[in-house]
């Protein structure tokens, strides 16, 4: 399989590469248009801050390319949020692939939402073999509310989008690359789409 990870200096690229390596899969890290366009599947990782991530994407014109992709695409954590339209983080316009808003947690619970939380309402082949209430690892301060595109939710303290799907664009707010065997299964499921 020709698997490409979008290279825009995102923080957790190495972790994603290692997670794939543990599954015996080699991936190419690239920001090159032709390489990304010709991939069978694309993974879009991300940690950090929305406006600086968008600046990195724009510096490589990837903000033009990514919305045009048609192969199965998987955004992880900030990589999920960047697919949306707008984020309260730095009042940032995002890629606008999925027509959703990214909001900051307004709660008296601790923010960042950090640690292992449970997946519910699993509604996608992405979660094949994953049981309801399975634990996955989160670390984030901004979230996407539940919507028509939500394919799994978690609760903190209100339900929010744990994962999204719009056409070929799949995305997870949690970190499958850091979520033990369940996370590996979710990555495998994406690769099998």
């Amino acid at each position, binding site marked *: 399989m020709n698997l490409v990870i979008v290279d825009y200096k995102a*923080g*957790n690229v*190495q*972790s994603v590469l*290692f*997670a794939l*390596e*543990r599954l015996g899969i080699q991936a190419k890290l690239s920001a090159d248009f032709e390489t990304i366009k010709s991939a069978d599947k694309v993974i879009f990782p991300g*940690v*950090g*801050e929305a406006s600086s991530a968008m600046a990195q994407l724009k510096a490589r014109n990837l903000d033009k390319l990514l919305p045009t992709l048609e192969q199965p695409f998987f955004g992880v954590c900030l990589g999920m949020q960047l697919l949306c339209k707008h984020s309260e983080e730095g009042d940032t316009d995002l890629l606008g692939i999925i027509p959703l808003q990214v909001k900051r947690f307004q709660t008296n*619970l*601790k*923010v*960042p*939402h*950090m*640690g*292992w*939380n*449970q997946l519910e309402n699993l509604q996608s082949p992405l979660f094949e073999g994953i049981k309801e209430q399975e*634990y996955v*690892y*989160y*670390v*984030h*301060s901004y979230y996407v509310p539940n919507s028509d595109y939500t394919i799994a939710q978690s*609760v*903190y303290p209100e339900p929010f989008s744990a994962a999204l799907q719009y056409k070929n664009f799949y995305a997870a707010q949690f*970190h499958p*690359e*850091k*979520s*033990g*065997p369940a*996370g*590996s299964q979710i990555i495998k499921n994406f690769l099998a789409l």
Partner: protein
Amino acid sequence: MLTKRIIPCLDIKNGRTVKGVRFENIRDAGDPVELAKWYAEQGADELVFLDITATNEERKTFAELVRDIARHIDIPFTVGGGISAVADVEVLLQAGADKVSINSAAIQNPALVEDLAKRFGSQCVTVAVDTKHTDATGWKVYARAGTVETEHATVDWARKVTDLGAGEILLTSMNNDGTKAGFALDITGAVAKAVSVPVVASGGAGSKQHFADVFHQAHADAALAASLFHFRELEVPDLKKYLKEQGVDVRL
């Protein structure tokens, strides 16, 4: 439900775990990667690796080790020890660490916390706070591995670094550390109440009950221990089962 985290901490020197560890079923308990894999399988929620070496040469060894750990374990981990600049953090995060913990450097140069949060995001910046109580001073922050008393009151300092962008506080009570008499519930509770970010309690764990206490009474978000786990006086699966029975939400 977001669960409370149980975090074994490993001290590293020259790429090896330091304290003599007793593990019959591990090929090489001095190998941090072997030990880390074992803890991950046992259900540890995260791991912390502290580099207790000093020289730059040894620090390079540590960065290589971090890469090796990231390659082999599939749960999050924090690395700390001797981090004093943005460049140090960049190396460790690129090697695959999820979070870094800074301590004395934050005291010497609080702006470092802000720089790190801006550059890498608050989610990967843990500020480690070593605190000690005396009747004369109350709970004060200590620097340089607990050898130097600072002017900072602990709750004020925790608030300050959180305002600067710390995404987590790792609070170690020097009074309790090594005593096995339980965590410092009063200062842990005070810090957990004062800041909006997660607080990891450290120092003093000696029994399962101590973990239940620090979660129930001090509202810690996570609890860390070292020798208790390394010497197998307490095993992670037993601890988590007990906590669940005590009404603490844990990942089982």
